[in-house]
């Protein structure tokens, strides 16, 4: 009798039923909660979507004899009107997104030890990072649009020496590959949409943590699920960064 009571208490704490006899029912073969499993498989499907975009990009880029040099296209920095800082701004964005991801990991860890205040604080910093990233992206898009980049027009063309030059002042021999704009806005836009969604979800998580909803449930699994999504956004950025800015 005493044993039964002990098991009941164990279930009260956030823990999956341990017996795994393969007979179905309440036990889980993978020892991971339903919600987290489904989030993982959703992210797997999302990885396929992003990969389809990035593989299209690779295919089109490799089929072109010439492609704009990212060190020339992405060289602007806010508040420094004529500065030439290749990759400077995007490095800041990358770093901010990594730190935001770390903040959410810390929130998950504080959730494991039921530290409500810790969860709230770290979720807050995670959201700040996400909003900052979105602001940076808005600035970068705005800047490139001002330079003339459109989904179906690319002003970054080759000059006589093959170096990337703005077509605007007729310095370049011709506009650049047309697909560059569509791919850039399409892929970074789709990623930005994920960041935006993630920020909204994180705000939901912050509110739930702050008003004690999760604490009353006895676990912070919601923060873990939101965290998985948020890290995935960071993960995708690694490859977007690779495709557009490094290569």
């Amino acid at each position: 009798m005493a044993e039964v009571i002990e098991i009941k208490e164990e279930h009260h704490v956030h823990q999956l039923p341990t017996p795994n006899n393969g007979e179905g029912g309440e036990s889980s073969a993978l020892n991971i909660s339903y919600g987290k499993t489904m989030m993982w498989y959703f992210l797997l499907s999302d990885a396929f979507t992003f990969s389809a975009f990035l593989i299209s990009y690779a295919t089109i880029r490799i089929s072109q004899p010439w492609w704009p040099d990212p060190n020339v296209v992405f060289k602007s920095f806010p508040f420094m009107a004529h500065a030439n800082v290749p990759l400077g701004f995007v490095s800041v964005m990358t770093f901010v997104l990594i730190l935001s991801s770390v903040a959410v990991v810390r929130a998950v860890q504080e959730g494991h030890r039921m530290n409500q205040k810790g969860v709230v604080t770290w979720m807050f910093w995670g959201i700040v990072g996400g909003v900052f990233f979105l602001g940076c992206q808005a600035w970068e898009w705005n800047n490139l649009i001002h330079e003339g980049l459109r989904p179906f027009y690319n002003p970054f063309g080759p000059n006589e020496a093959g170096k990337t030059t703005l077509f605007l002042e007729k310095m370049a021999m011709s506009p650049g590959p047309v697909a560059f704009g569509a791919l850039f806005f399409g892929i970074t836009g789709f990623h930005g949409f994920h960041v935006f969604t993630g920020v909204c979800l994180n705000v939901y998580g912050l509110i739930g943590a702050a008003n004690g909803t999760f604490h009353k449930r006895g676990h912070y699994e919601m923060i873990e699920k939101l965290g998985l999504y948020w890290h995935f956004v960071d993960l995708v950025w690694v490859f977007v960064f690779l495709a557009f800015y490094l290569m």
Partner: protein
Amino acid sequence: MSGHLTEEQYKSQVAAVWKSTLWLSIITVVEVVIALTLGHLIPKFILNLFFVLASVLKAFFIIAEFMHLKYEKRAFIISLGVPLIFLVWALIAFVVEGNYWLHLNFPK
């Protein structure tokens, strides 16, 4: 994850996260510095191979440590990893096709 952690477990997990953060930052800084300084010195193919490998390494840190996959059941990890073989195949197939278009449209 179970609900309760001992103080040591908690501390070691926090330390692991900060270590991954440090690695991610170092790899990113090295990538950017190499892109800016050695871009014209090293053959494009080797440079790009380095960037791809560095990015895969970064992805590993994010998935294993931040998303906590390293600590899940092996069967679960396999169920997520095996479908990615299709992506590797798609990448190879499409890049080969893109290369074919290049030679078709711009014969040397």
